[in-house]
C-alpha cells in the first residue's frame, strides 16, 4: 500500500466516530497547549533577559577577567570536605602560590590577584584585532538633575564603558555627534518621563551629577564593575565637618529603551576616571596611573573577529567571555526552565495518550469485521498496523496543531493585554503592566516551538497507538470475518 494511501485512509477513518475523535483531540490539545505556552513564556523571558545583557555587551565586545579561581580563593572547594591539619602548612592560604603576602589597604591578597591593572589594559589593547579596551568601572552620584531644574533624581550608577558598548545600546533617541564627547552620558528613557520631557528634547540637555568625596577608592565588595584604586598613602583620614561635594556637568547624548535597569547610565571611561578621582580625593593623573578593575571590556574591530580575539586573550592567560557565551548561558537556563515548566504539559499529554490508546482499542473492536475483509482482499499485518499507527499520529498532530493555534491566540492576547491594559470606554479595568516595555512580549512563539510540539504530540500519539496497532495487526482474519 502506498504511503499516501495509508495517510489518506487513516485520516478518513478519523471521521467515523467524530465525537470520539474530537474528545481525543481535545485532550491532546490541552497537553500541547500547556507545553507550547510554557515554552513561549520561557522564550519571552529569555529574550527579555538577553535584551538586558545587551545593555552591557554586544557582539563586538569581550569581557576579560584575571584567571583566578574565586571559589578556591575563598576557601570553597566543591565537594572537597575538610582538609587534614598539617603542622608545616602555612596559616594563611596562598592560592596563587607565589608566596606573596603583601595585602594592601585591607584588600585580601587573592583579591589583588583578581585585579587587572594598567599593564593588563595595555597588553589587551595591543592584541591584534582589538579596537579599544577599557576598565569596566562604575560610580554612584548623589543625584542627577537638569541644569536649569531643581528636581534631582536618583541615579544608581554610571558605568564607564568603551564607545563600542555606548554606541550600540538600543537607543530610543540619540545624537551620534554628542556620543563622541568625553562628557557624554547615556540614560534610560525613563528619565525623560521623570522630568516630563520628550525624549528628543532631553537629548542634548546638560545634566549635573553631584559627587561626594569620601576617600573611598571603590574597593567595596565583589561584583560587576567593582573597581579598585589603592592609594599610596593608605589610611588617610577624613577631617571632621562637611565632606567635599561638587556637581559635574554632563551632556545627554542618548536615551536607551527602558529595561529592568532603568536607573543606570553609561559614561566614558575618561569621565568615570574624573568622577572617581574626585570621590577618592586623588589627583586624576595619579588615580589613572594606578587604576585597577576586576573587568576590562575589550572591543573587537569587527564582529567577525570576536572569536579570534577571544582566543588570543585566553592565550595570554585571562578569563574572557564573549557576548555569545554570556547569552548562551542565559539561554541554557531559560531552556531548562521552559522544559521544566512543560512538565505539566507532559502529564496532560500522558493522559491524552491513554485516551488515544483507548480510542483505538474501541475502534479495533468496531472494525473487527472490516479488518478481516481488508486481510481477505490482501492487506498484510503491517498494513493494518500502519493504518492504526497513522490514525494515532493524526490524532496527535491535529491535537498539537489546535493546541499551537490556541497558544498563539492566547499568547497574543496576553501580550496585547499586558501592553495595552483592558479598558471599556474611559474606565480602565486593568493597567497594562508592560506599557513601559514596548519591545518585551511575555509570550514569544517560534518555529522551534511549533516543530517541537508537533514532534512531541505525534511521537506520544504514535507510541500510544503501538499497542492497538499490534492488536489489530494480529487479528485472525477467520475469526474477524465471522464476527
Amino acid at each position: 500500500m502506498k504511503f499516501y494511501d495509508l495517510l489518506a485512509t487513516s485520516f478518513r477513518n478519523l471521521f467515523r466516530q467524530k465525537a470520539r475523535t474530537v474528545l481525543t483531540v481535545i485532550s491532546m490539545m490541552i497537553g500541547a497547549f500547556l507545553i507550547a505556552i510554557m515554552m513561549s513564556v520561557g522564550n519571552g523571558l529569555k529574550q527579555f533577559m538577553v535584551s538586558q545583557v545587551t545593555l552591557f555587551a554586544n557582539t563586538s565586545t569581550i569581557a576579560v577577567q584575571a584567571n583566578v579561581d574565586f571559589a578556591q580563593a575563598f576557601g570553597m572547594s566543591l565537594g572537597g570536605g575538610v582538609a587534614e591539619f598539617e603542622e608545616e602548612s602555612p596559616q594563611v592560604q596562598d592560592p596563587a602560590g607565589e608566596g606573596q603576602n603583601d595585602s594592601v589597604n585591607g584588600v585580601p591578597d587573592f583579591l589583588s590577584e583578581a585585579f587587572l591593572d594598567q599593564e593588563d589594559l595595555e597588553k589587551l589593547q595591543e592584541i591584534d584585532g582589538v579596537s579599544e579596551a577599557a576598565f569596566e568601572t562604575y560610580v554612584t552620584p548623589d543625584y542627577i538633575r537638569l541644569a536649569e531644574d531643581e528636581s534631582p533624581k536618583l541615579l544608581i550608577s554610571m558605568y564607564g564603558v568603551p564607545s563600542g558598548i555606548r554606541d550600540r545600546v538600543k537607543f530610543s533617541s540619540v545624537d551620534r555627534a554628542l556620543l563622541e564627547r568625553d562628557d557624554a552620558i547615556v540614560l534610560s528613557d525613563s528619565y525623560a518621563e521623570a522630568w516630563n520631557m520628550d525624549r528628543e528634547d532631553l537629548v542634548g540637555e546638560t545634566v549635573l551629577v553631584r559627587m561626594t568625596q569620601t576617600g573611598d577608592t571603590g574597593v567595596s565588595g565583589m561584583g560587576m564593575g567593582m573597581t579598585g584604586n589603592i592609594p599610596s598613602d593608605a589610611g588617610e583620614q577624613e577631617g571632621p565637618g562637611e565632606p567635599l561635594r561638587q556637581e559635574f556637568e554632563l551632556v545627554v547624548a542618548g536615551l536607551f529603551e527602558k529595561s529592568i535597569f532603568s536607573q543606570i547610565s553609561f559614561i566614558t571611561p575618561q569621565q568615570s576616571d574624573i568622577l572617581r578621582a574626585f570621590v577618592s580625593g586623588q589627583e586624576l593623573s595619579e588615580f589613572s596611573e594606578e587604576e585597577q578593575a576586576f573587568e576590562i571590556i575589550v572591543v573587537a574591530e569587527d564582529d567577525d573577529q570576536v572569536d579570534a580575539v577571544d582566543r588570543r586573550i585566553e592565550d595570554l592567560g585571562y578569563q574572557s567571555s564573549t557576548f555569545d557565551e554570556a547569552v548562551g548561558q542565559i539561554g541554557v537556563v531559560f531552556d531548562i526552565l521552559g522544559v521544566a515548566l512543560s512538565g505539566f504539559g507532559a502529564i496532560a499529554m500522558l493522559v491524552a495518550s491513554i485516551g488515544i490508546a483507548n480510542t483505538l482499542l474501541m475502534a479495533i473492536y468496531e472494525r473487527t469485521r472490516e479488518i478481516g475483509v481488508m486481510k481477505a482482499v490482501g492487506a498484510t499485518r503491517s498494513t493494518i498496523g500502519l493504518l492504526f499507527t497513522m490514525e494515532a499520529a493524526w490524532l496527535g498532530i491535529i491535537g498539537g496543531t489546535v493546541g499551537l493555534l490556541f497558544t498563539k491566540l492566547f499568547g497574543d492576547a496576553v501580550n496585547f493585554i499586558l501592553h495595552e491594559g483592558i479598558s471599556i470606554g474611559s474606565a480602565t479595568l486593568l493597567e497594562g503592566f508592560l506599557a513601559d516595555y514596548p519591545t518585551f512580549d511575555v509570550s514569544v512563539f517560534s518555529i522551534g516551538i511549533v516543530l517541537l510540539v508537533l514532534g512531541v504530540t505525534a511521537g506520544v500519539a504514535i507510541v500510544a497507538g503501538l499497542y492497538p496497532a499490534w492488536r489489530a495487526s494480529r487479528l485472525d482474519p477467520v475469526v474477524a470475518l465471522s464476527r
Partner: protein
Amino acid sequence: MIVIKEAERTYHLGDEDIHALDGLSLEIKKGEFIALVGPSGSGKSTLMNVIGALDSLDSGSISVDGQDLSKLSDSGKAMYRRKKVGFVFQTFNLQARLTALENVELPLMLDGIPRKKRRDLALEALSKVHLSDRVRHVPSELSGGQQQRVAIARAIVNRPEILLADEPTGNLDSKSGEQIMKLLKSLNEQEQVTIVMVTHNEDHAAFAHRVLHMLDGNISHTRNGRKKEVYG
C-alpha cells in the same frame, strides 16, 4: 491447479474438538467450477478459508500451482490473496462508508497501484458486473443483489485465478441470486476463473461442474453438476 492432501484442521471449542477438516484430499483443476454443499459445521467454510490462505492446516498440505501455501510468510499470504484469489461473502462485507467504486479499488490500493490506474481497473470490473451506473453509490443505496455484484467486482478486479464464494446468494432473493449465479458462470466460462462456491441451494449448485458433498470434515460423495437445462 489446487492440490489438497490429507488436510486436517481442528478447532477447540471449550473441551470439545471440532474436526473441521478430517483427512480431506482434493484436486481442483484450473477453470473448474466447484460447488460445496453439506450441513453447517461440515467444514465447507474452513476448506474455503484454507484455499484462500486465511486459515492454515494442522497437518496435510495444500498447494496452488505448485506453491505450498503453508510455506508462505504473512506478507506472502497477503500477496497470494491479492493476486491469485478473490473472496465473495454471504454478507457482501462492503465498507459502508465507501462508494461502490472505492470498495472495488480497495484491493488495488493495497497492491500499491496508482490512483488513475486503479480507477480505470475498478470501473472496468464494475462494468463486468453491470453496475457502471451505480459507481458513486454507497452500499446502503444499493439493493442486496447490487451489493453482491460490487463485492464480485472487488473480488475480480485483480484478475484472480481463483474465486472463493461463501454462500454468495444466501442473502439474496431468488431473482438476484439467479443473476449472481449467471455472473459467476460467465466469469468461469469467459475468463477461465476457477470458482469454489459454498451453497445450500441445489439449483445454484447445479451451475458447477462438480458438486462436493461434505460431511464431518470430509467429502462424502461427489456428483456431476451441470444439468442440461442450465445451459439451455
